[in-house]
């Protein structure tokens, strides 16, 4: 069980890891907990596990780095391979793949910190604002758990939102804001991927599904399965599977999308290592599917593999 690590989502990862690990023990597996640090390779070499269950979130664990190490050590691991992780982690890259696969994703422009410092990209903000309209979502290119995301409601909010996002990553994207319902579709499987029921997150107070709303019990209501008519639920599953294969995912992933008032689905991102905390969406989808958490963990483990 690889968990913790040094990413900004360390605490979330420890909670995911604790839940997945308890499930693995209930399932009768011999679990070695590893809080990932500079001794990782040495520990894995010494222990030679049959498989690595990855419950890491964010940089290092979800971006293909740990996956690459496991490839070298020839330890099969859960979730997507190196390249799929890299594609999913970078929202700019992921969106390009979604678009190429014919999946709708809100229009966005991305800039590095250097573009603002050295090329005067700040002066292009009014043009971006004009093209994408307000509100504008400003987010770090590579970050999970909604860290560093701001919904800029007015023109004057954009620069501060950019500074917030740039504190979390050197690259940011400004994305058209799509108002609507927050839907998440978890996908399982490798050769024949299939979608779990759609889960809807309904934050009670905040204007979007932010960090506090994600991890504080009671701040968000969940509908699992989401109340959608069959056609829309099937469409959400179809879109999620399209994203899954567009990025080359295997094992498990979660696709987050917004359904606008016209019933159109807009994919925001794919999470290569979906959260498994008490308030996370994948466990709720598992319950809704009638599988239960342990069964899902078992299936994720059974799909552990090598190969990018």
């Amino acid at each position, binding site marked *: 069980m690889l968990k913790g690590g040094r990413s900004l989502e360390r605490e979330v990862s420890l909670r995911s890891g604790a839940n997945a690990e308890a499930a693995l023990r209930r399932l009768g597996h011999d679990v070695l907990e590893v809080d990932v640090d500079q001794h990782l390779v040495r520990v894995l070499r010494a222990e030679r596990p049959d*498989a690595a269950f990855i419950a890491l979130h964010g940089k290092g664990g979800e971006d293909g780095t740990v996956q690459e190490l496991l490839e070298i050590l020839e330890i099969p691991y859960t979730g997507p391979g190196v390249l799929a992780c890299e594609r999913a982690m970078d929202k700019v890259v992921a969106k390009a793949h979604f678009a190429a696969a014919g999946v709708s994703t809100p229009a966005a422009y991305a800039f590095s910190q250097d573009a603002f410092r050295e090329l005067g990209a700040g002066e292009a903000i009014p043009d971006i604002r004009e093209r994408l309209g307000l509100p504008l979502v400003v987010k770090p290119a590579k970050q999970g758990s909604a860290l560093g995301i701001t919904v800029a409601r007015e023109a004057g909010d954009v620069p501060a939102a950019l500074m917030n996002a740039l504190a979390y990553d050197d690259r940011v994207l400004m994305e058209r804001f799509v108002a609507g319902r927050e839907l998440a579709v978890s996908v399982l499987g490798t050769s024949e991927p299939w979608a779990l029921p759609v889960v809807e997150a309904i934050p009670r107070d905040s204007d979007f599904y932010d960090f506090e709303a994600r991890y504080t019990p009671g701040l968000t209501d969940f509908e699992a399965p989401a109340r959608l008519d069959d056609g829309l639920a099937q469409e959400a599953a179809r879109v999620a599977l399209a994203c899954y294969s567009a990025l080359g995912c295997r094992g498990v992933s979660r696709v987050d999308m917004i359904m606008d008032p016209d019933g159109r689905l807009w994919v925001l991102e794919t999470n290569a290592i979906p959260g498994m905390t008490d308030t996370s969406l994948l466990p709720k989808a598992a319950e809704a599917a009638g599988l239960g958490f342990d069964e899902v963990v078992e299936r994720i483990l059974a799909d552990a593999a090598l190969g990018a």
Partner: protein
Amino acid sequence: MVPEHPTATAARRAPTLPVTTTVRPPGAPTSSRTPPPRPRHHETALTPGDSARYDARFASRAAGIVSSVMRDLMSLSERPDIISLAGGFPSTESFEREVFDDVIEAVARDHLAAALQYGPTEGLAELRERIVEVMAHEGARARVEDIMVTSGGQQAIDLSIRTFVNPGDTVLAEGPTYPGAVPCFTTYEAAVEHVPMDDDGLRVDLVEASLDRLAAEGRPPKLLYTIPNFHNPGGVTMSLERRERLVRIAHERELLIVEDNPYGQIRFDGDPLPSLWELDDGAGWVIYLSTFSKILAPGVRVGWVAAPAAVLRKMNLGKQAADLASSTLSQRLVVEYLRRYDWRDYVARLNGIYRSRRDAMLRALEEEMPPEAAWTRPQGGLFVWATLPDYLDTTNLLASAVDKHEVAFVPGRGAFLDGRGGNAMRLNFSGVPEPVISEGVRRLGIAVAEMTDLHRALGGLE
């Protein structure tokens, strides 16, 4: 990396996993297999779905406690590669081993059975006598019957709020206020009104203005919580004029003051000022809290309250509910220490260490921080409070500071209950050696400069 042999890219299935019951306890060395402890059912019984059963049952005072980005980021400051200026730790490494041995020996030799036994809720009589002496050294006169021993200064704060505050009651506190008091305020569902500080401490003139406004709104405050000496996190000290005026206000307008004084003896510069307790002169409008955490050691968890008898009786009930009595063993240890040694010598030594560390921090701040930053110059205590330009958010700054620059601090927002403090931070100097302080502040300066440069690159923003 692209695999060299295309065949290697084919996903290989994991081998069938062996089903065993071997379980490694958390924290066990990874190099050797340990025999399996007996599986405990409850450890692995709950799934995320099961855990949801509690959500509807949590009390409203527990519901107020949220997950926060700040808390998760703060936990990263414990990483060994990070220089943490986020702690609030006194220095404990200079406490002499011989002194400790001697005190422990005395406790074991002369008081073992009593030290292992329950004690009175209000604390050991001998300790309360010693506390009166410690207070007298600061010029605060009290009688033994005014004193109740608590489990650290934190329990003294908890009991003060618990005893007086109903859900929704208004409480006045400095802005920023002690971050450790914030959970007490939220647990008892206090509505906190912050009163600003300046270099002379609490703006007492604004206390009067707040009293007027709150009276007009029909929600006069139950009490004012204040740290007059070397404020945590503010780093400032209330001037004598303001102390006198504040006590006058308390008397005229019947305002109850909770004076938290954990740092009064931790003074490196200037002359001690009278406590509010002393200025109140027995009128009963001041409740005084302090602790042995800074003058002896936080590990003993011994603090105290000085209050009028009617208040102590209620607090005694609260303490019975909380923990019946503070550790008798700890109290006895403190008594035997105070009987055998002059605690003021140890404090003088600590203050020497802290003075050099504070100087190192102020020097480093001067050298490393951009001109837009400002900070307090404490005459004592453990903390500096730094204020950055309004456009900087220190919670977000902490993300880049931890992730890229390997330095941590406490974001200012944790010291406010109304969302303010976003551009401020608390820096601790007491728990970090001087060279580490210099390096930590250097890294911090780089992290801040990166953001101020970026702000300029974005054309300045209002």
